[in-house]
């Protein structure tokens, strides 16, 4: 993705109202979109909470460091380090597994309560959510999250890697989110 394309992600997020957004991308663009969403938080000085169900904390921090993308403004909720036995820095909130969705919700809630004003929440990703949880539990989780986000004017970005066989058709995600942004 070119720098110009990269800047479109924070721009698209900036133009979106608070609510539940799905960001659909091709797998090759994953890291660039990740940079873009983090950049949106830092550009707007918005408290940013990121739930990582794909990468462990160390993997994410090392990657962002190599890409020279600051993460200091991000409150990270790491759902992977315990599962993959990756070292932790102790600066994030940790959930033992991406299957403990209630704990993820509580960690998000603690992050929201510890912040001033509306937050920008990133869920990485619906693909990982569905991989670790049943469809029923995933939908229940998204429903609770949707209500919480809408009540207080937060903005939530749900990352979606579009693959041919993932069973997560874009029309379905359009049903659960307020707006779907397709990154091309």
């Amino acid at each position, binding site marked *: 993705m070119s720098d110009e394309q990269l800047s479109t992600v924070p721009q698209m997020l900036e133009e979106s109202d608070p609510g539940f957004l799905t960001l659909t991308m091709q797998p090759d663009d994953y890291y660039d979109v990740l940079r873009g969403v983090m950049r949106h938080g830092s550009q707007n000085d918005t408290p940013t909470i990121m739930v990582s169900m794909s990468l462990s904390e160390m993997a994410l921090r090392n990657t962002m460091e190599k890409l020279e993308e600051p993460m200091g403004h991000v409150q990270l909720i790491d759902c992977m380090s315990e599962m993959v036995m990756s070292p932790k820095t102790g600066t994030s909130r940790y959930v*033992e*597994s991406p*299957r*403990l*969705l*209630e*704990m993820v*919700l*509580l960690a998000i*809630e*603690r992050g929201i*309560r*510890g912040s001033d004003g509306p937050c920008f929440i990133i869920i990485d990703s619906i693909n990982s959510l569905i991989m670790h*949880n*049943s*469809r*029923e*539990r995933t939908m*229940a*989780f998204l429903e*609770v999250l949707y209500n919480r986000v809408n009540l207080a004017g937060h903005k939530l970005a749900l990352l979606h890697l579009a693959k041919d066989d993932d069973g997560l058709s874009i029309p379905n995600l359009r049903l659960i989110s307020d707006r779907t942004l397709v990154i091309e």
Partner: protein
Amino acid sequence: MVRPAKRLCTTGIEDLDLLLHGGLTRGSLTVITGGMGSGRSSLCYEFLRRGSSMEEAGALMTSIAKKLYEQRLPPCEFNEDEVFKGITVSDFVSEDHVEPESFSTFIDGVVKTIRSGSHKRVAVDSMEQMVEWLPESAVAMGMRRIQEAAFDEDVTVVITCGMASTAELQAADCVLALGMKPVGPDAMRTMEVLRCRGGMQPLSVYVLSFGKEGAMLTRLMEGSDE
């Protein structure tokens, strides 16, 4: 019917107050049931401590020594010197096979604390061992006395017990049932509102968590894990 706001006792636990449509009724009796480790003491403490931070003095009557009680509490935002700020703590010895006369003396002590006029919130943690061998009539009588005193003095009372007897459940204005849901090698604490002010409550089960910021709840996700 909407109750006037001044008749509600905000627990100070935001999520719980939402579930209870504003809080517990002032001058009411709430029973918290649950097994060991389910969070009864922590919830009691949260109720008293949040009340203290809202200028409502509390009294904790505990069946274990104060220092041991403090060790049970999860890490919270209050520093070591302030853990029991605004809370008067007294311990009582809870024996097995308590006779009805001894139980009556114990109830006298609880009623005296409620009627002292010094506290707006009182927690008794717990009566479990004490009532285990007593006839239901004795337990019902004791609970009724506590309930009357609470109503007269406008003091909100919380009592914890294990598997609550019918007498305890029937006497209470509100019943919160705590439990543990096994999750792999660990467990999640759960909470249900079985009754509140005589009304029907939603049937959802909630996950209860204690952290530095205090107690929080979220809905237990339905659906199987597979």
